[in-house]
């Protein structure tokens, strides 16, 4: 219902208008980030500095990575409700085994990516609703996290701390990292031929199947990529917080979904945008606390502000989409 139909019989002027609306739609994530930045600059000019950005975007890297993980799942028309607790589990492993027994830690993390791949296969083969499977898995990851680390604690490996506290000249690290993540995934998913197949598995699975591609394989790859970026997110998070807690990632499930949607992704049809997703994650990271603190919004209402921002951006998108048809 919400998917705009493509009409080939449009005249050239109409097509021009359509292209403009598409462009505007593509720019919307960047526009919302700009608005949040302008608001912050207006409320507190001193925040717009090297130090200010490093501080405000502190948690943006793990959020961006988790959002990318969710984006891969959404690209295949599925939804991962376990990514938050998975990030928490990875965090607990990172702060314990990865430091004390690096080899075992690496094996566990690789194994957990393997479990994600298996989930993709299971969901495809048994035609299961991903929402329910991943909801169940969210319990599994949380249980495992508690078993690994019953009490908050642990310590991040030194090399990870060194990476995450890297201070490049002129541009704060979170911005460089976000750019890199966005560009690498953009290239992989939007510019390579297999990336097209992956997106096609969400756009038109039937056509892809008739063309001889294995939908089982695409689903496995998408879920494995989600697992990979979930692992990266958990590690980055621990690199910043230095110690872990079994519940540390719980909020990321919803943040990641919101980030993908803010970034111009859609739930069905394989329409996702890696750069948009990273921008969406940055917007949420900025809007979540720095902006609200500067606006003197009490902590009680910060969650609501996230919801309101989502609704406003989606409303803006509807206005633009109206012009698109």
């Amino acid at each position: 219902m919400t998917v705009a139909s493509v009409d080939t019989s449009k005249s050239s002027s109409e097509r021009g208008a359509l292209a403009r609306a598409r462009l505007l739609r593509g720019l919307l994530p960047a526009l919302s980030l700009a608005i949040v930045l302008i608001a912050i600059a207006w409320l507190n000019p001193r925040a717009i500095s090297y130090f200010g950005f490093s501080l405000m975007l502190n948690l943006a890297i793990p959020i961006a990575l988790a959002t990318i993980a969710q984006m891969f799942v959404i690209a295949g028309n599925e939804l991962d409700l376990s990514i938050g607790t998975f990030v928490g589990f990875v965090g607990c492993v990172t702060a314990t085994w990865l430091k004390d027994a690096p080899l075992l830690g690496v094996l566990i993390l690789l194994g957990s990516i393997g479990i994600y791949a298996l989930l993709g296969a299971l969901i495809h083969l048994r035609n299961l609703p991903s929402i329910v499977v991943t909801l169940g898995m969210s319990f599994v990851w949380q249980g495992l996290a508690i078993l690994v680390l019953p009490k908050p604690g642990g310590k991040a490996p030194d090399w990870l701390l060194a990476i995450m506290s890297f201070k490049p000249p002129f541009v704060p690290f979170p911005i460089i990292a976000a750019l890199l993540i966005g560009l690498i995934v953009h290239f992989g998913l939007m510019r390579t031929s297999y990336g097209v197949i992956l997106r096609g598995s969400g756009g038109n699975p039937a056509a892809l199947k008739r063309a001889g591609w294995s939908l089982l394989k695409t689903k496995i790859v998408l879920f494995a990529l989600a697992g990979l970026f979930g692992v990266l997110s958990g590690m980055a998070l621990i690199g910043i917080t230095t110690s872990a807690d079994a519940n540390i990632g719980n909020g990321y499930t919803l943040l990641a979904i919101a980030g993908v949607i803010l970034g111009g992704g859609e739930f069905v049809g394989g329409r996702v945008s890696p750069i948009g997703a990273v921008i969406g994650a940055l917007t949420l990271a900025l809007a979540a606390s720095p902006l609200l603190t500067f606006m003197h919004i009490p902590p009680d209402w910060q969650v609501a502000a996230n919801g309101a921002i989502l609704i406003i951006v989606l409303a803006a998108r509807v206005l633009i989409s109206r012009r698109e048809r």
Partner: protein
Amino acid sequence: MILVKSLAGKPWVWSFIGALVVWLATIIFTGGYGAGGMVTAALSLAVFTVIVGVGQMFVITLGPGNVDLSLPANIGLASAVAMKVMGGSDSMIIVGLLAALACGAAIGAVNYLLIWALRIPPIIATLSASFIIQSIDISYGRGLQIKPPPGFADFANWQILGVPVLAILTVLFTVGAAIALQRMIYGRSVLAIGQNIRAAWLAGVNVGRIRLLTYTLSGALGGIDGALLAGYFRGANVDIGNEYLLASIAVVVIGGTSVAGGKANVPGVWGAALFLVLLLTMLNTFGVSAGVRLLLTGLIIVGVITAAGGEKAAR
């Protein structure tokens, strides 16, 4: 034999069999001790999952993508509203229940308003709404009189011969819901929309109104559930509804309702709710740690879903 065969063909039977197996496993472990008490406790707790589960079932039956993620926040806010309106006095119980019902229904209507006006997927609409509701609840619930009136707490915990009265009322309610689903125009319209929204629209079903009604119904059930929970646990708090996000979706799916929409099953919701509650009781009885309990709960849910399997899409 014919009866057994026709029963085995019904998906909801399996959820009851699962509940029975878990119950038997537990009483074998305890040597028969506490078998009856366990059923009573399971019935009282399952009630809350059944009430939201039925609401969620109607929403999910509307078709792919329809799901109400605002239920936990809704339950939290409604429980606070109910306790505030009741203000600890027995004479205000009915008013408090109505307030919780109205609060929930309003949330449901707002959910549909977002879906309709912004044309966004219900998942993200109910999610955004739940963020806002959560904040309202945190801000509203601060420093609140959260104890229920004694009469209401007694009512929520009232048992006749070991059978919770709330469970009896909920059985009556689910019978009503089953009739509404299978025999009334409203329920048939929900099923028709879930099977093919366009065909339903062409056949003259008022799609918008039915969807609005369904989301409002789900919200209202969440609201009443919040009030009852606060009564049962003798107090309201922000997190009171948290576990009902997974539970409400899980009981619907385990109970044999199709996630693809258009096929719903009311008895299965009861079976699945009892199964989940008894499963938790069993794991607690076995004395496993919190981590193992979560792990096993998750694995069993995934296992049950895998065994039940999704049906092949009709397209």
